[in-house]
């Protein structure tokens, strides 16, 4: 286990921003950190980066306190910014030097990443001259320039058009394949489902859901029974006493397990209902999120 957060708490006066949370993340895996605004995600990240001191608890990497001195960390904050009147290569050199890189490795990394994000022509431009999307690419480059071991991305896709979002997805994939440990904080559930093996949902400073994404879904407590029929099933399903969502010709019912699903299917057959399609699916991350953190 690489990243280990144990009984972490942070209070601001009487406000409990983070209350006794514990998170484990093996090296080379991806964690999706979810929660509404003010849930405590950013406070947790800032404690990991050493920007805030916890009131109690520990944050360790390989059994030692997590520190920038012992681990290279790349952080893309939610609120983005660059020096508007400074040339791109100058500020990337500045960021790289602060991360302990030497001039030649910085320059080659700058060229690599500008090519990778297809914006080499912006190297000598002022940041203020770039579009919002391209500025965001530069910020992502600043996060990855020093090839960090632990990458923390806070809402990385916001402000990117679909083409650039796909490009960033590819870059994140590459980093995961390279064995980098990634923490992804986002409100976009589809991205979390794409990249993250692990999820952690926070609400009012506490963890409400945590674990392997697959296990979380499997053991969440219900499954979604999707039924498609050309007939109206409203009356029949009501008579069975199940709550359902009516989106004719589709009907979605929450069932506790496969047996209950099959039982409903049999009941419909007994009533000679013609069923076009039938599937039993796990709840989506979006559903879990809405239910658990609302």
């Amino acid at each position, binding site marked *: 286990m690489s990243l280990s957060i144990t009984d972490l708490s942070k209070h601001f006066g009487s406000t409990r921003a983070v209350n006794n949370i514990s998170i484990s993340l093996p090296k080379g895996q991806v964690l999706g950190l979810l929660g509404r605004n003010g849930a405590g995600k950013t406070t947790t990240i*800032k404690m990991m*980066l050493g*920007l*805030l001191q916890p009131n109690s608890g520990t944050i360790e990497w390989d059994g030692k306190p997590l520190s*920038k001195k012992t681990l290279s*960390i790349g*952080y893309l*904050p*939610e*609120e*983005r*910014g*660059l*020096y*508007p*009147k*400074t040339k791109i290569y100058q500020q990337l050199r*500045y*960021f790289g*030097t*602060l*991360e*302990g890189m030497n001039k030649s490795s910085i320059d080659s990394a700058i060229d690599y990443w500008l090519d990778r994000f297809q914006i080499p022509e912006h190297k000598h431009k002022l940041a203020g001259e770039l579009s919002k999307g391209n500025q965001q690419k530069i*910020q992502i480059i*600043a996060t990855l320039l020093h090839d960090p071991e632990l990458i923390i991305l806070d809402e990385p896709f916001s402000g990117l058009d679909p083409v650039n979002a796909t490009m960033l997805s590819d870059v994140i994939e590459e980093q995961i394949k390279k064995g980098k440990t990634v923490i992804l904080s986002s409100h976009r559930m589809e991205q979390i489902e794409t990249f993250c093996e692990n999820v952690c949902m926070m609400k009012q400073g506490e963890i409400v859901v945590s674990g392997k994404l697959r296990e979380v879904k499997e053991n969440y407590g219900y499954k979604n029974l999707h039924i498609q029929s050309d007939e109206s099933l409203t009356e029949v399903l009501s008579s069975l006493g199940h709550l359902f969502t009516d989106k004719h010709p589709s009907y979605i019912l929450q069932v506790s397990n496969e047996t209950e699903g099959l039982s409903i299917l049999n009941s419909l057959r007994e009533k000679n209902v013609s069923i076009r399609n039938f599937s039993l699916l796990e709840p989506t991350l979006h559903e879990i999120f809405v239910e658990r953190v609302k």
Partner: protein
Amino acid sequence: MRAFKTVFLFHLKENISSKMFIIMTIVLMGLVLGFFAFTHFSSDRGVSHIGVANETTSYNVPLKELNKKHKSFDLKAVSKDNIKKYKNKVKNNDRDGLIVITEHNGFPTVTYYYNNFADYEITSIIQQVVQQTYLQKTIHDKHVDPSVAKALLTNITVQDKALKSNDSMGLVYFFIFMMYMFILTCGQVVSMSVSSEKTSRVMEIMITKVRPIVMMYGKIFSSMSMGIAYIASIGIAYLIAQQLGWTGSDSLSIFGMPLDLSVLTFNLFLSFLVYFILGYVLFAFLFASLSSVVSRLEDLGSVIFPASILMMGAFFLGIRAMTDPTDKWVTIGSYIPFFSPVVMFTRIVLEAATPMEIGISIVILLATIVVISLLASRLYLNGVMRYSGKTTFKDVWKMIKK
């Protein structure tokens, strides 16, 4: 140390490549060179051309002798017929003035015609000459005893011996103004740098790469280097003027205050540099830490206002010290750290401070810098990570105590 060096060099490069720095350096050098050039060249052309129309026969004015003795004016005899013509010349600025000497009932009258500005040196000299002639004439007419006449005509000598020279007054004013301007300008550069870094959200990236305190020190010292560069540019301009031979004029002055460059010694320059650096560092801590709590650039002015007021207070107390360096409030002010850079320096230039007093003021200043730096570091650390609406001074105090 490596992080400090990186931050320092980055901001130094930003500062000295900024338009503001380039323009201000050129303007400062231009002002210094322009001042000396103007004084040098205008002193050669500053001869006043005055006409003297003597309508009397008794009161002879020795024009040639006076012209020989005084280089600042050129007196020329004007005949009675040409008085009107010469007055028009004065009116049209072709000549600088006309003196008409008339006599009524044996009593002389001197009338001085000029356009806008009178040259009282000339009237005073002419008056003396006429007065002497009038006295001699009266003594002669009234048959006064020669020994009494001799006694009456003897000039009383007034010896002007200042115990303390005020020739350095102009220099003091110049240095006070420079100190005030550079501390305020460089302090505000730090303020703008901190607040724009925060409002543009670069701070979010930066605080993960370098400790906020290192950032603050890097900015403060890079801005200080900019201030020293300004001072150096003034020094270079002065040396250029000196090489060109423009600094030798006896009549140098700023706003009517004499500017004696002979008091401009290395020690004086060194003490200016020491007090500038100490004063700047003290105020820069205030500017940097107060600016760190600002979330919007438009709030910056109100937050740094107290620090600016302190600096203005130092300036005005410095002006008071110029006229009375031993005043009670000036003496007290020269030990108060926020005022001492300006006030004690003024006392040093006016030779009104002992080495012991200078030492005590520097020790107090250094101790205050240490205390303020600790408080500023705490405020900066908590301030840069705080994004909210308006910040009150109650919030600032809470952040210091955190």
